[in-house]
């Protein structure tokens, strides 16, 4: 038998749920195979991994829906525990124990011989680069280091099947790559099989095999290459000098039929069609471009692209040089008893009218701090910030009327209905009477909120909450929009739809400042600033950033490659 894992007709329904969370899942994994379990949040990835590790029981337990090494994880739990390694999303580490103590703890629970431990720990720590931190408390490690330590704890028993639940969330791209290297080495040495759950589509290319999950169903199993073949002849680029790119995008979406995806990529618009027929009937000059795995996912998720029109903002304040947001030397220093922590240092940038400007960086880089200074949620230690020429700290009331803010995790009132949320926020922004009624009606229509109008906000799907949150941010027709991680946790199709709306706003000369840790979202921005360790490393257009690291070995670098290169360079300078 060559298969380490066999799953057949697996169903899982949670207590009190109407529908199964996992629906008829069947898949296989060979020994030594590295598979990515890809799917948006809520697609059932974690539930699936928990079922494999015996932490949850399936509905149809009698039929042995899961066999690991030909054993059922529900009937032979003891034996299964010896051959699998499971790393939960929060790594399962004790924050107040040191690195070595965490290893000792798990070694003890896994019954590893005391004599063997010292050499095993050394090997694992050396291998993961944690050796010099072995006496450090876990809570003082960075996200990437915690993740490596979590992996080390799982690897103590040299498992045959390694289950990793979103190991790359909240970790910077450099650590992500290192972790990938560690798992690769492990697979070669021990013939281990890996299932790596992730919601980042761009990670798929590093794996032998991909399982694509959506809404509790498996919608694809196979290699990335095969997925791309399916999409052959459906992906194109369009360039038309008559229009600016945003208008062009709108034109394409309006005129062409059967579009799965349409994205601005540098000076081109990339389009994906449902089938060749639609491509042939296109009203534009198509240039063929090789398909990506992401294109396949969009098609597999039944994406349909739509264009949006937004009302122009009422404010028309004239500013010098057409600049709507200006950050001058913004610095934030947090002082504790004996230490100074610089969360953001000398942040300088300008955003023009109708521009989408992205702050890109890993978690903890200082994006949120910068962001909060810009919308006067925290006071900068030095520096100023101007919105439409007004200093925000000197004129807080006037400036707040000018911008809309969409907070991380959407900040909605969960136990109010959609309508009540709209009523409340329009009231807070000073709308009343006929004006208020008209504005709310307009928002309900343009953001398609009608179906859920009287539903409690807590019960809404995530993508819908995101849409509602955006509608609340623009309720007072602001000319500047701040979006803090607006797309985290939302599936790719909803994300695309969201960006189409943002595009429509930008077309109406609304300036948009957005933070994101999705590298692939950078290309939606006109310009981006790479934020790392509290500083802006570079700011430029996405294309220029990518081209800056072009080399013979990497002729077509991705945003992530560019980011890693630029960080490495910065670290080198820092060391010197």
């Amino acid at each position, binding site marked *: 038998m060559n298969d380490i894992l066999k799953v057949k007709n697996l169903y899982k329904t949670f207590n009190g749920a109407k529908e199964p969370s996992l629906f008829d899942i069947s898949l296989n994994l060979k020994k030594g195979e590295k598979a990515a379990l890809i799917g948006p949040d809520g697609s059932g990835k974690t539930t699936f991994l928990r079922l494999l590790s015996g*932490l949850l029981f399936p509905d149809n337990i009698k039929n042995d829906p899961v066999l690991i090494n030909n054993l059922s994880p529900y009937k032979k739990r003891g034996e299964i525990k010896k051959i699998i390694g499971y790393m939960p999303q*929060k790594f399962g580490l*004790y924050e107040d124990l040191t690195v070595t103590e965490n290893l000792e703890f798990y070694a003890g*629970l896994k019954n590893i011989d005391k004599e063997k431990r010292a050499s095993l720990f050394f090997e694992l720590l050396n291998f993961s680069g944690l050796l010099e931190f072995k006496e450090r408390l876990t809570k003082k490690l960075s996200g990437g280091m915690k993740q490596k330590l979590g992996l080390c704890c799982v690897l103590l028993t040299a498992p045959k099947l390694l289950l990793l639940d979103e190991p790359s969330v909240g970790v910077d791209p450099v650590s992500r790559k290192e972790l990938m290297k560690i798992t690769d080495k492990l697979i070669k040495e021990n013939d281990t099989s890996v299932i790596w759950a992730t919601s980042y589509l761009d990670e798929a290319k590093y794996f032998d095999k991909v399982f694509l999950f959506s809404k509790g169903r498996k919608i694809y199993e196979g290699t990335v290459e095969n997925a791309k073949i399916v999409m052959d002849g459906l992906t194109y680029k369009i360039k038309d000098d008559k229009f600016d790119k945003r208008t062009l995008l709108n034109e394409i979406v309006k005129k062409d039929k059967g579009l799965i995806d349409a994205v601005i990529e540098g000076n081109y618009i990339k389009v994906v069609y449902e089938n060749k027929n639609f491509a042939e009937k296109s009203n534009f000059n198509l240039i063929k471009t090789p398909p990506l795995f992401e294109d396949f996912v969009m098609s597999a998720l039944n994406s349909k692209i739509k264009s949006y029109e937004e009302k122009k903002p009422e404010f028309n304040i004239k500013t010098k040089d057409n600049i709507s947001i200006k950050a001058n030397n913004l610095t934030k220093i947090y002082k504790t008893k004996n230490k100074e922590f610089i969360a953001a240092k000398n942040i300088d940038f300008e955003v023009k009218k109708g521009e989408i400007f992205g702050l890109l960086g890993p978690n903890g880089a200082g994006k949120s701090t910068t962001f909060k200074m810009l919308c006067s949620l925290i006071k900068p230690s030095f520096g100023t910030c101007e919105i439409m020429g007004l200093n925000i700290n000197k004129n807080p009331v006037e400036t707040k009327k000018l911008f809309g803010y969409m907070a991380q995790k959407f900040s909605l009132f969960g136990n109010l209905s959609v309508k009540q949320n709209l009523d409340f926020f329009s009231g807070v922004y000073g709308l009343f009477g006929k004006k208020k009624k008209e504005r709310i009606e307009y928002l309900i229509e343009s953001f398609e909120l009608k179906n859920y109008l009287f539903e409690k906000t807590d019960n809404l799907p995530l993508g819908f909450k995101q849409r509602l949150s955006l509608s609340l941010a623009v309720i007072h027709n602001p000319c500047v929009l701040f979006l803090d991680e607006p797309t985290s946790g939302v599936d790719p199709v909803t994300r695309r739809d969201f960006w189409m709306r943002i595009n429509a706003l930008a077309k109406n000369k609304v300036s948009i400042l957005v933070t994101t840790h999705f590298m692939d979202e950078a290309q939606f921005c006109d310009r981006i600033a790479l934020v790392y360790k509290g500083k802006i490393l570079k700011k430029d257009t996405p294309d220029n950033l990518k081209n800056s690291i072009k080399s013979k070995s990497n002729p077509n670098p991705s945003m992530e490659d560019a980011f890693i290169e630029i960080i490495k360079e910065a670290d080198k300078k820092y060391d010197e």
Partner: protein
Amino acid sequence: MMNKNIIFTFVIKEFRQITRDFSSILIAFVLPLILLFLFGFGINFDTNTIKIGIIDENNTILSRDIKESLNNTKFLDCIYIKNEIEANKLLSGGIIRGYAVIPVNFTKEFKKNSNPKIQIITDGSEPNTAKFVSSYIKGSVESYLEYEKIKSGKKSNSSIISPILRIWYNPSLKSVYFILPGSISIIMTLTGAILTALVIAREWERGTMEAILTTEITKFEFLISKYIAYFILSMLSVIFCFFIIIAIFKVPYIGSYFFLFLISSLFMLTSIGTGLFISTIAKDQFIAGQMAGTISFMPSMMLSGLIYEIDSMPFIIRMISCIIPAKYYVSSISSLFLTGNVYKILIISSIYLFAFAAVVFLLTYFCTKEVIE
């Protein structure tokens, strides 16, 4: 069923966490200290000398003698007041707790062989003191009059048996001697239940439970390890408390140390068990903490007989108090301190506490899930 190495590993981990988490040290050692001082100095049922006033409108030998006899007791301190206006001022100012008025015709009435009247006015804002003042004045005046009657050869209308009081078990009637040992029960529910209520909930909250469940540890080993770690910590805290009570508050101890240890250990197990049980069903540190407060701390404070006398409670509450482990612990510990070894109390309490601990352990065991759902 049990793997010693696994339990040992787990207990070591718990201790490392405890020593690094300042709040658990705070709950185990600093909070008990504060509570002991609070109970030792704050709660006091002892009677002190009470200041009263006397207005003598009669001004005869008899009335002056009565005044003297009141002043000679060790519980009252009398001051003489000219008139009621002045007395009311002193009363409302809180300087005196009450006053007695001996009326003009007092001696005359007495000689007529009818019962003479005196007026007693007390400060009802402190009912206990008011009751004490009125009954004490009444009693002293009555007994003095009886004495006068007999002296003058008149027939007394009451028998003259004067009881000689002896108070056993707490001869100096110091409430501290009862309160402090009993207060250990409250301290133990605090360290035992509140501390442990957080620990399993914390493992769920921080995602470590998920990782532990995929290792070879069984739920029996998991629970035993938690019991051992927190038992050791809490017993250290108990020993610390006893030391403070005996060495600093100088409460005499006359019982057996073996029973002290046995009964404290058993009570500790019920307390830890309750905490772990709460923790198992709560899965959220905040809720667990709140539940531990209401389920274990409040009943042992109110229904253990330490502060409020159980015999004076309604029938249903008395029945409920019978299932509260703290009640058994308080009665055993106060008898160990004040009476010595009362085997009947000690054995019944031990059996009950053991049974309670066992039931809670089983409940916790069956409620601890090996799967996430």
